[in-house]
């Protein structure tokens, strides 16, 4: 089954599959938002989801860490496996799952706490640090990974909401990596940022690839082309095309993909 499935998808590069989604359906009340999506997301890869607004790419992203559970009217069908384990299995604790699958949101959303407490929030909840010194280490490591350590190391106890937009978003990324996730989901992480902050975050995403599987939803095709190795194009709730990023942008197979990246639909 697994092999057959892979062949079906004709993966161009042989990578470890981190997440595989099979026949995923999402309904918001009567609205069929995601239709029969199959996708294999590789480990230590940046995968970009592109598509016009309302095509379901964010919805699908939120299925990967069961954030849609917090929406009453949302129903998810099909299977999503992370490391071969079905995350919608009743035995799986969504709270534990979300510690493993971190998420960064469209708008920077630091908690109204100090920078230190923002980053320490996840590790404290999950008991990752045995003592204060260890926690300090975790926070520093996370902030370094978030490429923001040098900017905030002298004011760790200042409120996180006082940072600039780009810094806030990097703080949120640091906060997400502090819980040592295996997958990092990013929902349009740069849409609220200026070009310089965007460049910093993109650089950061590229570095994060060494440790995590990164899935990023973006409206900017240039961004997808810059940061991702694989790209999935969604349209009206369908996964139209999924392939290497180069392939998608230079030689798309589906006419809809071509129309979208050349700016004819959107």
């Amino acid at each position: 089954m697994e092999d057959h499935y892979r062949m079906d998808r004709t993966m161009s590069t042989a990578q470890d599959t981190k997440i595989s989604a099979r026949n995923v359906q999402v309904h918001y009340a009567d609205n069929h938002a995601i239709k029969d999506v199959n996708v294999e997301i590789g480990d230590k890869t940046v995968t970009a989801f592109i598509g016009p607004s309302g095509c379901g790419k964010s919805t699908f992203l939120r299925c990967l860490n069961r954030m849609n559970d917090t929406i009453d009217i949302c129903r998810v069908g099909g299977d999503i496996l992370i490391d071969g384990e079905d995350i919608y299995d009743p035995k799986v604790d969504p709270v534990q799952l979300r510690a493993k699958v971190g998420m960064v949101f469209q708008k920077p959303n630091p908690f109204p706490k100090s920078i230190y407490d923002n980053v320490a929030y996840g590790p404290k909840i999950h008991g990752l640090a045995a003592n204060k010194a260890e926690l300090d280490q975790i926070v520093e490591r996370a902030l370094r990974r978030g490429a923001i350590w040098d900017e905030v190391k002298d004011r760790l106890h200042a409120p996180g909401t006082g940072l600039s937009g780009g810094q806030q978003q990097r703080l949120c990324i640091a906060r997400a990596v502090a819980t040592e996730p295996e997958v990092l989901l990013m929902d349009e992480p740069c849409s609220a940022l200026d070009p310089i902050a965007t460049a910093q975050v993109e650089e950061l995403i590229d570095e994060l690839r060494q440790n995590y599987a990164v899935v990023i939803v973006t409206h900017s095709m240039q961004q997808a082309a810059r940061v991702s190795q694989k790209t999935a194009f969604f349209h009206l709730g369908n996964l139209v095309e999924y392939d290497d990023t180069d392939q998608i942008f230079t030689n798309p197979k589906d006419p809809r993909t071509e129309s979208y990246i050349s700016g004819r639909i959107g």
Partner: protein
Amino acid sequence: MSNLLLIAIVIVLGAVGYVLGRKRALNTAGGNIRDLHSLPVYYGANTAMTAVVPAMGLLLVWLLVQPMVVNNAVSGMISDATIAEAGSRDLVMSDVRRVADGLDLAVANGAMSGAEASNLDPSTSDVRGILAAVGVALGSDVSSETLDAAQRYRGMSGTGSIWKAVVVIAASVAGLGIAYMQSHKDFRARNIVERGVLALLIFAASIAILTTLGIILSLVFSTVEFFRLYAASDFFFGLRWNPSFSGRGGGSELGILPLLWGTLYISFVALIVAVPLGLFAAIYLSEYASNRFRSIAKPLLEVLAGIPTIVYGLFALLTVGPLLVDVFGSGGLLGVDWMAGGTAVMTAGLVMGIMLIPFVSSLSDDIINAVPQSMRDGSYGLGATKSETVRQVILPAALPGIVGAILLAASRAIGETMIVVLGAGAAARLSMNPFDAMTTVTAKIVSQLTGDSDFASPEALVAFALGISLFIITLGLNVFALYIVRKYREQYD
């Protein structure tokens, strides 16, 4: 001419003005609305406004000024001897007014003709009897001096009201005329009406503010009067509350401290009950409850806020008090003898706490809902559970608002009256035992002012001093609450 009729005439003039102004404006534009600066209704409204507003203003001023002028003129006629006999000028003047009004009434009822009333002679006719027949009772026979003054009063008032009618109607007609002439297609009626609307809104806003000022002033004057009769230091630092109603002045101990202690103690108990219950209810409703449950439960909870406090008082008196005695009284369930009667701090505090639950929960619920969803998403996205999210993210974000809500509830508790009148007892007492009967500032204001009270004695005037103390405390709490809310509010964009 009665004021009501006058007002009716002015309003009719306004309505006529509306029709005329609208019509004239349309005529100047040759019936084409597009050529008008404003819509036709604005010309009508402008004409009506100019006809009604100045006339009404004039009427209002006239109504205020005329009695003062007449009073001044008439009170000059009264001799010092009469004043000395009656006790004060005000008393004589009120007699004069009663006689004058009585004569007017008698004429209106047909008990005597207008001429008869004007030519009454106190030595030949029984003025007191005539007036009693039309329902105006006088304390003594009418002296010729009083009658003269009353006749003068009638005369001036009569002339005054004729002039009033003439002037007001003239003002209205003049306004109508001016606005009518202005109603030309280029006239900017719309802008004038806009200014009229602005004036109306400012008027409404200032009424509220002026009323507050008026309340404060009336309290302040009586309070100053009180402190003239009773030492301020005894009032603020006295440890005993023991007013005597037997004699006038003296023997009363009017210390505010026992009352303030009762107020704060009961409010404290009430908040201990209301804050956790209200807050938890708010958290449940906003974070955990399904939409359907919330839509039913929230209005139900708010029904509590609609129960009149006197009903809560009855509940305290008849249900909670006896229940507490059964538990804490002698021979009660606990075998302790802490509680002598049903009325106690605990009784009033518990019931008041229940009353405050919807306050705390409703305000907190709004505040918790105002915390952006992105905060919750951020927390859930890190693998936090609901209660961790609530405790560590939502409550800290909502804290200033919640503190504000609690302080507002506290000022409500401090000002609450009926529950403590019925539930807390009447004994002013400085005690730590929450099962003792105590009383509060508000309850004592009620008891000092109800019944026969002499408003010149410190025992009655103390109510105003208590009132203003309470007002300052709750005002301070409200200001503090607003300050906290503003200062610590997170700016979410």
